[in-house]
């Protein structure tokens, strides 16, 4: 029966080529726009560490004064002072914990006739790699002892290793960072979680390439490396000495494996804030402990423009669907006599309905194929955008399948009304008219 409907539908679509082309083109444009923007939206609002994100949390405390504080409304600060970060780090209340700040690292290649250049660097503590499951190609991370002794060690990214050492095992070699010698202890495999959640609010980009060098925080600071984002809340005597200045510039991540651990850590943070208030260091009691995905939502990491584009694309698809409804309706009303004849020859309302839905489905399928083409074109355009996420915009298998789901669903919704109108048509007047 289905094959017969298919044949009927194709014949009917062929009969009026202009109208069919208009429908397919409009639907294709709408679907293409939707899939393009949805692909970007999905990419940008993705989970950077799918296997681990539920266990990663971002503690927040607030050392600011009561100026401008509104109880229940003011959110705690998103970065920490050195003192608080070290207190929380050394408390070791979580399975893993690391503090970090982004920095620009001046790297001087050892070869002659090469110029120094700047790369993105992360100043952090030893647990960073274990907590974030950063994979190593050669060597490994540094130890807690290295953190404390300000050892001049560094972990470098695969692309830097390729650039400076042609991809060979460079563990044990020396890298000149900010005019100081650092010993390479590890080389990462490709590692660039998107969004770059750990760089958020620390002066780093939200999307794009991974960082080139990872250094122990205190060793990097001893080599005069600056923090990417510093926010001070009191009179500063010596901005160079960030460790003692009343400034927030560090982010902290902790791994908490279950609900009980999370509850304990929340209590610990609240207790810490109370204790600091008692000591006179803090004034505001609020603390927060968002998990990774909540943190990305809090930070509104997806650019406004991208959401606007997605909204626009859906508005556009809606218009295209309404357009298709109108055109399908016109087509089916034009065929009133054919319907009358079929009904008179014994076709039930249900079969007429099915026949028209199959026709709508075919339009949807064709629109989906065309939409896929438009989406590929759209993504090609986006890859040429200046945005930091541009290079990542590609159609994956899920979105490929999703295109057809959207296309079929949209066309079937568009087909409902015309098909219903067709099947409730009284056959007798139609036969009489002809």
């Amino acid at each position: 029966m289905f094959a017969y409907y298919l044949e009927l539908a194709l014949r009917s679509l062929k009969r009026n080529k202009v109208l069919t082309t208009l429908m397919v083109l409009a639907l294709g444009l709408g679907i293409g726009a939707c899939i393009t923007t949805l692909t970007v939206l999905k990419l940008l609002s993705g989970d950077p560490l799918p296997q681990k994100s539920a266990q990663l949390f971002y503690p927040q405390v607030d050392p600011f004064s009561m100026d401008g504080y509104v109880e229940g409304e003011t959110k705690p600060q998103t970065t920490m002072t050195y003192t608080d970060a070290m207190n929380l780090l050394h408390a070791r209340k979580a399975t893993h914990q690391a503090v970090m700040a982004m920095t620009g690292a001046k790297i001087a290649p050892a070869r002659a006739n090469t110029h120094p250049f700047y790369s993105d660097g992360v100043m952090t503590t030893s647990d960073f790699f274990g907590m974030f499951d950063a994979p190593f190609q050669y060597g490994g991370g540094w130890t807690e002892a290295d953190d404390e002794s300000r050892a001049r060690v560094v972990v470098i990214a695969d692309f830097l290793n390729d650039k400076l050492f042609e991809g060979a095992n460079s563990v044990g070699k020396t890298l000149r960072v900010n005019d100081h010698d650092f010993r390479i202890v590890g080389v990462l495999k490709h590692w660039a979680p998107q969004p770059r959640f750990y760089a958020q609010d620390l002066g780093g980009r939200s999307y794009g390439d991974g960082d080139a060098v990872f250094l122990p925080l205190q060793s990097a600071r001893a080599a005069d490396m600056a923090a990417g984002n510093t926010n001070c809340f009191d009179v500063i005597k010596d901005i160079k000495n960030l460790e003692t200045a009343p400034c927030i510039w560090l982010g902290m991540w902790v791994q908490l494996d279950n609900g009980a651990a999370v509850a304990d850590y929340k209590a610990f943070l609240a207790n810490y804030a109370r204790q600091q208030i008692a000591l006179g260091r803090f004034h505001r009691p609020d603390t927060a402990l968002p998990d990774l995905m909540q943190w990305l939502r809090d930070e509104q990491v997806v650019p406004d423009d991208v959401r606007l584009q997605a909204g626009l694309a859906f508005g556009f698809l809606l218009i295209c669907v309404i357009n298709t409804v109108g055109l399908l309706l016109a087509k089916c009303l034009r065929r009133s006599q054919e319907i009358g004849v079929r009904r008179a020859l014994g076709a039930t309302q249900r079969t007429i309905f099915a026949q028209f839905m199959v026709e709508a489905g075919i339009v949807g399928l064709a629109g989906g194929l065309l939409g896929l083409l438009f989406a590929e074109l759209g993504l090609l355009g986006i890859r040429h955008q200046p945005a930091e996420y541009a290079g990542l915009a590609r159609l994956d298998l899920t979105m490929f399948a999703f295109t057809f789901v959207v296309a079929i669903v949209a066309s079937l919704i568009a087909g409902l009304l015309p098909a219903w109108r067709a099947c409730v048509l009284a056959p007798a007047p139609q036969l009489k008219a002809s």
Partner: protein
Amino acid sequence: MQIQPIIAALRKHRLATVLLALEIALACAVLCNACFLIISRVQHTHVDSGVDESALAAVKLTGYDPASSVDLNARVLSGLAKLPGVQSVNVINAVPFGDHAGTAGISTDAAGKHFAGIVDFYVGGPGSFKALGLKLVAGSLPMASDAQPLDSFVPENATVWVTRALADHLWPGTDPLGKEFWTDKFHFRVGGVLAHLARPWGGEGGPSTIDWSVYVPAQAGRQLAGTYLLHAAPTELPRVLRDARAAMASIAPDAVVDSKNSQTLGTLRETYFRQDRLMSGILLGVICALLLVTALGIVGLASFWVQQRRRQIGVRRALGATRSDILSYFQTENFLIVSGGIVLGMVLAFAINLLLMQHYELPRLPLYYLPIGALSLYVIGQLAVLGPALRAAAVPPVEATRSVG
């Protein structure tokens, strides 16, 4: 033209009429809002920086030892001045559309009680005022004695030049010359007013504060080093910049040229507004596609109606209606449907605008967008219906005698 018979006819095609009106309503709503977004973005990209952009380029150095910055200044200033085509070189802390450097909150009293906003300080060497090409609208030009040595990011007690926009904000309705303001312990006295000077990174307070800049003459030194302003003839500028960047390898081998910020001001401006231009382009593309789809919908439905009513048209022609009567019948019909759509569309446009205002810090949609949006939809509607309507007008009266089919 009588409207009643048209309305009576449309009632028989209620569903198709409503669909078409709905499509037009959505198109109207999206059109108004998208146009509004485009125009606000385009306006943003046309900001007047107040400087002679076509003749200026910046060279920014990083990674040098801060202790050697005095020596670096001397080497770079004399080295770059020797390059052919360079008209002047000045040290400066920031340039429009580059990274910001001297951003600070100011107050109009020494105690810092009357906070007056966050402004950007352009601190430049003695010749930078002339090199930037700043236009003075009141007061006097800076003199050599105004340029002071620096211990911090600005001199402790300085004569400064503020923009007219900032002067109007700080001292509305009064003469700003000689007025004072403070930033922490730093004290400033206004020596002149500038027509325009856009802040380096656009300003955090939005488009209204883009001109909140203060120009401070100062002497090169430890606190003012690393960024240099090149002035050259516009035609020579790209070559001069290329030469200057190449020369850095020998003039300052210890420093790293910050490639992103070492560009002509034209390039910096281009990069700065690239995202805005791109978004305007996308919005424009959507508008075109939207109008096209709407027009196609109108053509499709109108063609269908014409086909369906061939007999009725024939009867009307046989009863004495002229071709232009038939033509204007379909045109009026389209006008009525589009009107219905537009009424609904205006409500929708404001609803979408309200939604956008909540999420994207957008101002309210100005009322004059509605008649413009309506007019363009009327035009599109009339153009789209013209083809089918002409076909209808061409139906001969003899059609009345034929049976349908």
